[in-house]
């Protein structure tokens, strides 16, 4: 598990950033899905002052462009016609494709859909890139739609818990270099918790896999985490604080019964 230098970072949480949409360029403002716009603004903020241009992109998203999926199904089931625009955007990798198009990133373009572990998956897979695929752009993005709030009360308790914070939607972007100077980040992707309790993987075993030599200064246990973006949001906040030391953020995703962990070295 190799650490990668964080060259830059940005975050966008619309609920606490109500005028974010003034940063959307006109050609994207009128017709593009909101989740594309969130991803675009987070990346534009990051790359505005970046010294290097990303060569690859890894996106983590739990549910993708949910509003577009719903919009397409609404069209089919209500009017008998689904909009092709909705369908194109409903594909989980539409954000990554749009970002590549807008920012001219022609290298590997991968989208990971691992629920609450999606951000950890995207970071972990940087280790599988070639050295000339760096700097790598890592993005976490998810959106909330009213239907989720409607469905939530009838979902199992574990699921109800994980969509109840204000970080329900937003976008976080990191620019990572293939080096190990501070600040740095590394992660363990999803490890199955197991049905056999003797062999069960827990947050402790996942954290141990990071082989941290000393206890981290800050430990964030996001078991049954509060939103798809919780892990990414904690990382963004820690990077913003930039307090020396290390943090470990663990996440758990109920639908896949898997833990992941991200370590920040500041």
């Amino acid at each position, binding site marked *: 598990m190799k650490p990668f230098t964080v060259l830059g970072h940005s975050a966008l949480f619309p609920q606490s950033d109500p005028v974010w949409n003034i940063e959307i360029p006109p050609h994207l403002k009128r017709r593009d899905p909101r989740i594309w716009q969130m991803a675009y603004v987070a990346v534009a903020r990051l790359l505005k002052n970046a010294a290097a241009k990303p060569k690859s992109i890894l996106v983590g998203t739990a549910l993708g462009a949910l509003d577009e999926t719903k919009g397409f199904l*609404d069209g089919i089931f209500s009017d008998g016609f*689904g909009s092709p625009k909705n369908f194109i955007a409903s594909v989980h*990798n539409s954000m990554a*494709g749009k970002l590549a*198009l807008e920012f001219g990133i022609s290298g590997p373009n991968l989208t990971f859909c691992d629920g609450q572990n999606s951000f950890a998956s995207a970071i972990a897979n940087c280790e599988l890139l070639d050295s000339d695929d760096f700097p790598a752009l890592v993005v976490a993005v998810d959106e909330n739609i009213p239907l989720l709030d409607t*469905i939530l009360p009838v979902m199992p308790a574990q*699921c109800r818990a994980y969509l109840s914070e204000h970080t329900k939607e937003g976008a976080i972007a990191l620019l990572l270099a293939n080096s190990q100077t501070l600040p740095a980040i590394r992660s363990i992707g*999803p490890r199955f918790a*197991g049905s056999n309790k003797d062999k069960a993987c827990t947050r402790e075993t996942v954290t141990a896999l990071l082989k941290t030599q000393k206890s981290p200064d800050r430990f964030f246990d996001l078991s049954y985490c509060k939103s798809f973006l919780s892990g990414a949001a904690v990382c963004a906040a820690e990077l913003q604080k930039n307090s020396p030391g290390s943090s470990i953020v663990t996440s758990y*995703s109920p639908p896949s019964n898997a833990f992941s962990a991200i370590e920040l070295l500041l």
Partner: protein
Amino acid sequence: MSKAVPIIGMGAICAAGNTIASAKKGVYAGHDNLTPLSLFDSGLKIPPLSGQVLALEENAVGPNRTAQLAYAAVREALSGLHKRKGLTLGFVVATTVGGITRSELFYKAYKTDPLKLSRAATECAGHEPAALSGFLCENFDGTGFYTLSTACSTGLHAVGLAKRLIQAKAFDLCCAVGSDALSILTIRGFSSLMLLDPTGCKPFDKNRKGTSLGEGAGAVCLASDDACKLLDVKPLAYVSGWGASADCHHMTAPHPAGLGAITAVTAALDEAAIAPADIGMIATHGTATPDNDVAEIRAMQKVFGTVPPFCSMKRSLGHTLAASGIIEAVFAVSAMKDNCVPHTAGFTDLDETIGIAPQSKQKAGIRHVLKNSFGFGGNNAAAVFSLSNEQGL
């Protein structure tokens, strides 16, 4: 990361058959396995010709159709591994629809009757793509996983990442799995884009008008050299190269000169440490849409000069989206081992704008095959599979 990684197990379930053995002869012969969609009512006036798995066993294992297909393919791929001897098993799972085959029906029912909301907990439980990965880990004693979704290129990316996870020693064994069931969303989506050929797809043919969708799952189990020794298994073949790129051109249309495809294929050949002339067969993406087929051949001509024998399996299998890269790679590797280039079902007339025709071949003497997959978002993947590790990588 240029080391070739052994394949020790493969599995596939598709319109051509429920196992590799039952399907491969039909695929090689170019059987047309498209039938009018009968699995569900898509709402289209004329059910489109589709590659359906009509004989999915009644007691299939899994919470939804995508999971059931994946379970069948993985079970076949791991059938030779009677004892794992403590080796860790990872999964890289490729899917575009995940559990939407159930959640879209729930949503339809809920829209007409809001009291149906109470069914959300069961009907939407498998909606997230990651739920499929958890299901496979649960049933096959997996250690960990990654869930990928990059549209129609996903399957080959899963193979590439599985190769690199083995090389990075993240797992001893790693199964790349691609699975997608036919769904209302995808049938109606491709229909809305006018990408479905009402008479069935005709890859590279002069009269091609679009693709035909299909469903299925494929699985390729990779292993480290040490794991092969411990298990005393002989590799079936090797994954020797993987390449990935983005077109940066258009969200759905390929770059007309296939620039992104050229980058991906060149990267895969470089990683495999072979020359273009060493490729004995190309299992193309070959969707039969007018633009895609031209762009793919333009790219292959740029890389190869004289394009090696190539085929498309889309009329035999349907376009199985995220699963297509793995299912078609499974049959390409099988064909390489069986010394043939499959026939391209649906092709009859040469398209002068393409200028070359797919060709089947017996006693082909193939040592390396190239598999291409391209997807929405301008996403490109290519992988090289080799009969032996003759490069000593």
